[in-house]
């Protein structure tokens, strides 16, 4: 049971607002110590795992481009595009992006999107611009943060509940591999079919919440 101390440290540490890097490090030492590993082994393990997951850092190579485009006014431009559309609201902009993300992910195109490449420079400014139509009447910080958080959320929800409809995605390959170890053979298409109801439910549930967001924003404006 003591190996679970790492999980307890994570929960307490995150709740207290301690720097997550420190929380994670302490949790790793605690769980490993409970399982009988010494500090030197844990340090080597952390080093090895950190280096072998370095592929995660490749996505950050988009930052210089995004920075240059922001400097030239990309976010303002995205905002203006939306302001010119009369019917555009925050909820509708985000719903449109979520549908696009879900459909492209269902076709296996999961790389069309992402928080660095799409949400920060384009989607979040569009969602903000739909609400902040008048330059002289800027959004208050709470509303702005809330809209931005929703912009990040639609990217996640769209890709999570779209990608499993595609038969060659990592999760379906993993499902096949695990079931095959137990002698159960499943067709990828069959697994993908079972992801469709949840994909539709995700669109309806989150779509409804986005339209409710519009109503709440409207109420706040008055």
């Amino acid at each position, binding site marked *: 049971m003591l190996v679970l101390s790492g999980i307890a440290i994570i929960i307490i540490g995150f709740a207290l607002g301690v720097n997550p890097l420190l929380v994670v490090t302490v949790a790793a030492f605690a769980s490993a110590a409970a399982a009988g590993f010494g500090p030197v082994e844990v340090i080597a393990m952390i080093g090895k795992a950190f280096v072998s997951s370095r592929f995660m850092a490749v996505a950050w190579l988009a930052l210089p*481009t995004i920075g240059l485009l922001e400097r030239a006014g990309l976010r*303002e431009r995205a905002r203006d595009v939306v302001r010119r559309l009369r019917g555009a609201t925050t909820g509708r902009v985000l719903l449109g992006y979520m549908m696009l993300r879900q459909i492209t992910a269902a076709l296996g195109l999961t790389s069309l999107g992402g928080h660095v490449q799409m949400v*920060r420079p384009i989607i979040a400014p569009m969602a903000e611009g739909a609400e902040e139509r008048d330059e002289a009447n800027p959004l208050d910080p709470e509303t702005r943060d809330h809209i931005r958080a929703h912009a990040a959320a639609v990217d996640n929800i769209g890709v999570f509940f779209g990608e499993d409809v595609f038969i060659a995605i990592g999760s379906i390959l993993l499902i096949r591999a695990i079931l095959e170890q137990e002698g159960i053979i499943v067709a990828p298409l069959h697994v993908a079919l079972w992801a469709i109801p949840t994909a539709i439910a995700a669109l309806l549930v989150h779509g409804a919440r986005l339209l409710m967001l519009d109503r709440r924003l409207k109420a706040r404006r008055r």
Partner: protein
Amino acid sequence: MIGLDALGIAAAALPATVAIHHALDRAEATRWRNVGFWGVFAILLGAGPWLPDLLNGCLVLAMVGLATWGLRPSLVVSSDRPSSVRGGSWLFAPALALPAVTLAGTLLVPDGRIAGVALIDPKQVSLVALALGALVALLLAIRLTRPPATAPAAESRRLSDAVGWAMILPQMLAALGGVFAMAGVGKVVADGVTSVIALDTPLTATIAYCVGMALFTMVMGNAFAAFPIMTAGIGLPIVIHRFGGDPAAVAALGMLSGFCGTLMTPMAANFNIVPAAILELRDRFGVIRVQWPTALLLLVFNIAVLAACGFSGRIS
């Protein structure tokens, strides 16, 4: 062959640039902390595979120490923020070129062979395409916006500072996942779920499996880490073998229940915590706060679908 090592060296270029920019910033009070943090990150990405694990681990701990101490970078202001939009709608082109090149590379060179020569590690094709896309997009952006020579580095630093320590959190959590696996945390959690809930009907077994997937994913931060353990613990022996659940349905809805967990946990940093930093939210948990209602409703939906349709005709 272009593989993970080359990708690491390419990825190291960004933190190296940021470190140099900080080193040249004499006015910054916390200059050397920032140089240390980004410099060490660059070393780990670029040279890590050739250094001993223990040294790499110490370098990681050094970064954690510097981040905990507080990087507090001084703000870089974009040198000349244009009041009018310079490139017009063309500004969208480089932003869209990045995914377009990534996609084209992944589709056109699926096995890493160019003109019959095995040039790219087939497992890394999409990441190599992503790195290439970033380069193409950067050149396009420079061409289009004609910034001063120092601007690309300054902009890299501005955005990297905004993201800050969150940039290495996904890799730290991957390391923690490895330690948890080594310490056997997964087995303890799976045993706990099976011993707490009486699994005597298809419905309770379905609930245990789906909720277990969501909870375990929240702990591990990754549905892929939770799936093999929960499926071996509850999904296969009980939901599939004892109650006759359709394996494809059980596995698909179990995985999707895990995704619901992903939406609710800070452990899935690259989906929940890092975006909060990228979008400069003041609340670290802001993204999770707007996601959890959807995640919970979809978890209930998954359980309902599996319980209602996943056992058709085979129930005993």
